[in-house]
C-alpha cells in the first residue's frame, strides 16, 4: 500500500517531467489559459526566440481585462484597448489557439470561462498569467497564476519550472448562518491567517461546509487563495464537481466520461494524508465580513468597529492600521456600518457568476438604489449574461437602478472605462482593495459579498444585509 497522499501530491507527481539542475521540478501544465494583458509580451518573446507553441490545442484564450463593458462595437474608443484586442486575435490565429472572442458568445473572465466550458477538470494542472487562477482549484485542479516569462515557457514547452509547495488543510465545518456567504468564508480565513499566511503553501479547503457548497461557492473561496498568500487553493473533487461538469462542451462523453470520473476520484486526497498544517474553523463563527483597509486581510464583521491603532498587536500591525485608515479616510474605533458609499460594483471572477446574480436579484426585486450611488452589475461571462437575461435578472437589477453591462473584469481593476473617480468609496464584490485598485489613485474599496453590495447600494451606506433585507 502506498502511503496516503494529498491531491496536491498526486497531481504534482503525475505531472512531473523531471528535476531541473537547480532542484526545481519541470512540471507539465495540461491546460493553459491566456488573456489579453499578460500574453502579448510572451508571444513576442516566442517570436524573438523563433519558437512554436508546443501544444496549441491545450491553450485557450479570452479577453476580459481591458474589454469595455459599455461599448460593444469595435473599434473601441480607447485605441490601446483595441490594439490589445487585435494582438490577441493575431496571436491566436498565427499559433492555432482557440479564442473565445466576443463573436463566439463564450467570452468572459478567464476564470469563469474555463469552468463554464468544462475545460477546468479535476486532477489536472492549469496555468494562466493571472493570479486568480487559483479559482480553478475548486474542481480539484492544481492551478497556478504565473508571470509572463512563464506564459512563454508554457507556450513553448507546455511546462514550467517550479518548486513544490507545502499543503495546509483548512477545514470549515457546520452550517453558515443566514446571510453569510462563501465570500465571507474566504474573507474570514484571510483575516485569520493573514495576507501572507499562505506563502509557500497550497490551501486544501475541506470540511462539511465545503462538502455542502456548490461549485460556484467553492470557486469564490479558491479564487481568493492568492489574497491569503497561497499560490494554489483547491477542494477535492466529489459528486458535486462531476454533476457540474457533465455535459459541458469540453467534458468527456460516453464511455470516456465514466473513465474520467473514475480517474478524477482517484486524485482526491486519501484519508490519512499528511498535511504540513491543519486549521479548523467553525462555520457558525463566521459573520458577514467587510474590509476596512487596503489589503484583503484587513477585514471585520459588519457588527464590529473599525480597528484603532491602539488595539494593534504589534508595531507592524499599528503602522498598517495607521496607513490604511489614512488612505481609507475612516474613523478609528467607529462602526463600519453606516459608512457612506458612492459606488456599488457587482461582478468579477470572485462573484460574477449566475448564482451571485440570482441571489442579489432575490433581494433587489422592488428595491431602489439610493440616490447618488452609482451602481453597476457586470456578468462574468456572456453565458452568465445570457442566462441572467433569460431569467429576467437584468430587468430586476436595472429596475432597481443598477446599470446592466456586458461581460468583463470591469471595475475590479479598471483597465477599461469603469473607474472610480477621486476619493469615491466603492462597495465591491471583487477581490482586491489595494490602494488605487479600482482606477483612481485615491479611490477606496470595501470588499464584501454580493448581497452585502446590494444592501450597500440600496441604503447608500455599508449595511448589514441581514437587517436591510430581513434575512433570517
Amino acid at each position, binding site marked *: 500500500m502506498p502511503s496516503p497522499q494529498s491531491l496536491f501530491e498526486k497531481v504534482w507527481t*503525475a*505531472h*512531473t517531467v523531471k528535476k*531541473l*539542475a*537547480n*532542484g526545481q521540478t*519541470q512540471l*507539465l501544465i*495540461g491546460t493553459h489559459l491566456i488573456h489579453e*494583458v499578460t500574453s*502579448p*509580451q510572451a508571444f513576442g518573446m516566442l517570436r524573438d*526566440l523563433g519558437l512554436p507553441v*508546443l*501544444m496549441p490545442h491545450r491553450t485557450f484564450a479570452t479577453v476580459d481585462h481591458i474589454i469595455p463593458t459599455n461599448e460593444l462595437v469595435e473599434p473601441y474608443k*480607447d485605441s490601446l484597448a483595441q*490594439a*490589445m484586442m487585435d494582438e490577441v486575435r493575431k496571436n491566436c490565429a498565427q499559433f492555432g489557439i482557440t479564442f473565445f472572442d466576443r463573436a463566439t458568445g463564450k467570452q468572459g473572465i478567464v476564470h469563469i470561462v474555463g469552468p463554464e466550458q468544462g475545460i477546468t*477538470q479535476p486532477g489536472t494542472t492549469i496555468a494562466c498569467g*493571472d*493570479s486568480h487562477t487559483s479559482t480553478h482549484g475548486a474542481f480539484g485542479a492544481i492551478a497556478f*497564476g*504565473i*508571470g*509572463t*516569462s*512563464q506564459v*512563454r*515557457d508554457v507556450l*513553448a*514547452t*507546455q*511546462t*514550467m*519550472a*517550479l*518548486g513544490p509547495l507545502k499543503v495546509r488543510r483548512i477545514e470549515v465545518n457546520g452550517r453558515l448562518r443566514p446571510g453569510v456567504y462563501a465570500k465571507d468564508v474566504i474573507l474570514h480565513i484571510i483575516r485569520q491567517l493573514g495576507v*501572507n499566511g499562505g*506563502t*509557500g503553501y497550497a490551501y486544501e479547503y475541506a470540511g462539511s461546509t465545503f462538502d455542502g457548497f456548490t461549485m460556484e461557492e467553492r470557486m469564490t473561496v479558491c479564487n481568493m487563495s492568492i489574497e491569503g*498568500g497561497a*499560490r494554489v487553493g483547491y477542494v477535492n473533487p466529489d459528486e458535486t464537481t462531476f454533476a457540474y461538469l457533465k455535459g459541458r462542451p469540453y467534458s468527456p462523453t460516453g464511455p470516456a466520461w465514466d*473513465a*474520467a470520473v473514475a*480517474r478524477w476520484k482517484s486524485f482526491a486526497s486519501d484519508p490519512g494524508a499528511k498535511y504540513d498544517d491543519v486549521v479548523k474553523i467553525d462555520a457558525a463563527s463566521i459573520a458577514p465580513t467587510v474590509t476596512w483597509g487596503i*489589503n484583503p486581510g484587513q477585514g471585520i464583521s459588519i457588527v464590529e468597529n473599525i480597528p484603532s491603532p491602539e488595539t494593534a498587536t504589534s508595531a*507592524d500591525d499599528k*503602522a*498598517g492600521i495607521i*496607513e490604511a485608515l489614512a488612505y481609507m479616510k475612516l474613523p478609528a474605533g467607529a462602526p463600519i456600518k453606516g459608512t457612506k458609499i458612492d459606488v456599488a460594483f457587482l461582478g468579477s471572477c470572485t462573484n460574477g457568476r449566475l448564482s451571485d446574480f440570482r441571489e442579489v436579484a432575490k433581494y433587489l426585486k422592488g428595491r431602489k438604489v439610493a440616490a447618488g450611488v452609482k451602481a453597476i452589475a457586470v456578468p462574468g461571462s456572456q453565458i452568465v449574461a445570457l442566462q441572467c437575461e433569460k431569467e429576467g435578472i437584468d430587468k430586476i437589477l436595472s429596475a432597481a437602478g443598477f446599470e446592466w453591462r456586458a461581460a468583463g473584469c470591469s471595475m475590479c*481593476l*479598471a*483597465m477599461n472605462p469603469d473607474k472610480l473617480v477621486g476619493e469615491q468609496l466603492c462597495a465591491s464584490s471583487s477581490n482586491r482593495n*489595494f*490602494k*488605487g*485598485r479600482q*482606477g483612481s*489613485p485615491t479611490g477606496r474599496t470595501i470588499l464584501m459579498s454580493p448581497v452585502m453590495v446590494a444592501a450597500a447600494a440600496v441604503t447608500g451606506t455599508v449595511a448589514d444585509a441581514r437587517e436591510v433585507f430581513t434575512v433570517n
Partner: protein
Amino acid sequence: MALAKITSVTGRAVPVVGNDIDTDRIIPARFMKCVTFDGLGEFLFNDVRKDPKTGAITDHPLNQARYQGATILLSGANFGCGSSREHAPQAIQKYGFKAVIAESYAEIFFGNSTTLGMPCVTAAREDIAKIAAAVDANPQAEVTIDLVKLEVRFAEQTVKITQRESARDALVNGRWDAIGELLDGIPAVKETARKLPYLATA
C-alpha cells in the same frame, strides 16, 4: 542560451519603506495597456511618486536627487504581493534596478524576478534598517549583495542574507531563465503527456 552568472550585485541603494507593497502600487494597472514591456520603468511607483490630485512630484525616495542612479531597492515584508503581473518586476528592472533586498516576498513576484535575473534577497528587518541608515547618511555608499557568501557589505558593515537555494543556484550558475532547460526536456514532456488521458488524445 548562455546567461550571465549573477554572483553579486554592487551599486547604490534606495530605501522604499513599508510592508505589503503590492503590485498595483509598483505599477498601477492602467499602465499595463501595452503589448511590450518597453517603457514600463517610467511608471514605476507612479501613483506615489506623483500627487494624485495635483500631479506634483512627491518626496518619494525615487524622486529624491540624492538617490538617483540607485540600482538596489530596499523594502519591507511581503514585497510584491498581489497580482502575478510580470509588469511589476519588469518595471523595477526597466527603471534600472538590478536587485531587491527585503524582509520577505510574495511568491509569484519572487519567481518572476528570479526569471528576469533580478535577485530578490531576504534580510532581517534590523539589518535592512542598518543598510537604510547607512545610505541615508551617505547615499553614495556602495552596497554589495554577495550571493556566494550570502551577505551584504556596505559602509564597512556586513549583514547576513538568505535566499531560496533554487533561486540562488539558478542565479550564480547562470540558469535563472529556465527556458533552455525546459526546451531540452520536450521529449520527456511528450512522454509524460502520453500517460495522462486528458492530454494523450490529440
